């Protein structure tokens, strides 16, 4: 299975009926494709919408209805629109149940860096810092390694997005939790052993007695 699809399918299992969910750009956006139809999840787009629907059919796009990247989207029945102060009030105020974000690094303490590479990539943090500060649950969806280098590091070398630790990291190889304040291997991807995960992870992982395989 494609690594991105493994991640998206596994993250989708973390969502519950009634959740208000914010999905970031990239792999997190794919999560919506794997949410079961009977699960009534509300997706927020931080540019001012609850109830984001799929990309409209050819010819049905509306220029005033887009996602946070400016791409046309649709709105589901029951959708609501609002201004940016309300949108970030929802985010910072703890009204968003789950945010799913991409990551550059997550460290052993659960700190996330995902908004800049000094001297190289300085796009701005957009809504990422507010989302990590304010959402009830923060899930990072990212590849385990980039160019052979572990993205689960001992300590973030890149500027932090927030001092608030994330709750869960889902990669193409593993699910890592931070419930005890330390990175703990919760699950491995299908066909991947605990030893294989440890070999490609820079951070020290706490390994429980049994580590189940991801259910997708």
């Amino acid at each position, binding site marked *: 299975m494609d690594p991105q699809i493994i991640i998206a399918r596994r993250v989708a299992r973390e969502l519950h009926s009634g959740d208000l969910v914010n999905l970031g750009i990239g792999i997190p956006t794919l999560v919506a494709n794997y949410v079961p139809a009977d699960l009534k999840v509300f997706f927020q787009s931080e540019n001012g919408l609850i109830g984001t629907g799929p990309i409209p059919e050819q010819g049905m796009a509306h220029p005033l209805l887009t996602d946070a990247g400016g791409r046309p989207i649709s709105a589901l029945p029951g959708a609501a629109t609002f201004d940016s102060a309300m949108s970030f009030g929802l*985010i910072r105020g703890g009204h968003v149940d789950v945010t799913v974000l991409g990551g550059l690094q997550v460290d052993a303490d659960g700190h996330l860096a995902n908004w800049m590479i000094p001297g190289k990539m300085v796009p*701005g943090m957009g809504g990422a810092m507010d989302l990590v500060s304010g959402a009830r649950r923060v899930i990072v969806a990212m590849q385990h390694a980039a160019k052979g280098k572990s993205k689960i590091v001992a300590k973030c070398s890149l*500027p932090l997005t927030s001092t608030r630790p994330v709750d869960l990291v889902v990669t193409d190889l593993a699910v890592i939790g931070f419930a005890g304040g330390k990175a703990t291997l919760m699950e491995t991807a299908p066909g991947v052993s605990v030893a294989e995960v440890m070999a490609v992870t820079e951070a020290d992982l706490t390994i429980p007695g049994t580590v189940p395989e991801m259910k997708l």
Partner: protein
Amino acid sequence: MNPVSVEEAVAMIPSGASIMVGGFMGVGTPERLLDEVVRQQKTGLTLISNDAATPGKGVGKLFDAALVSRLTATHIGLNPKAQQQMLANQIAVDLIPQGTFVERIRAGGCGLGGVLTPTGVGTLVADGKRLIEVDGKSFLLETALRAQFALVHAFLADYLGNLTYALTARNFNPVMAMAAETVIVTAEHIVPVGVIAPDHVVTPAPLVDYLIANG
């Protein structure tokens, strides 16, 4: 509210002015006003805008024409020209979290000196800012943001200047319409008074200084 032509409205904006421009990635942006700012070559602008849109679209046009000297925004990663101008030090750029951006503008429009936010505590964003503890929690003091001009795009404007917005084109527009000395509005449709029911007005008419008349 006074109806004016787009040429007259932009003629009021001097070079070097501070302008807030509504819109999110060019959606809900007063394009006609920006086209005219470019035509009249208003240089050295201080721009307050969520993003830099993309070249050729929304505030992206201001970077195409190199009219911006200072920028406060939250994300400019999708406009390579704005990125280049920032890295070449042609623009002084202040990148701030989006929730902080909108709250600073809201504070500016609501007579507040600033807001206390947990966002950015312990990160680069906190550099040089006052940390204030309230009930054992740490917050950053983020000061109010105002501009000389707000350029706003509405969906409906009535003859008095009452405004409504559409879908995700609302974004920063109603917040900015409160935070500038002079508020200039373009609308998709100008409608008779009464078409917008009182319960549906988002920006009340007294906030609007100038409405751009149909061409």
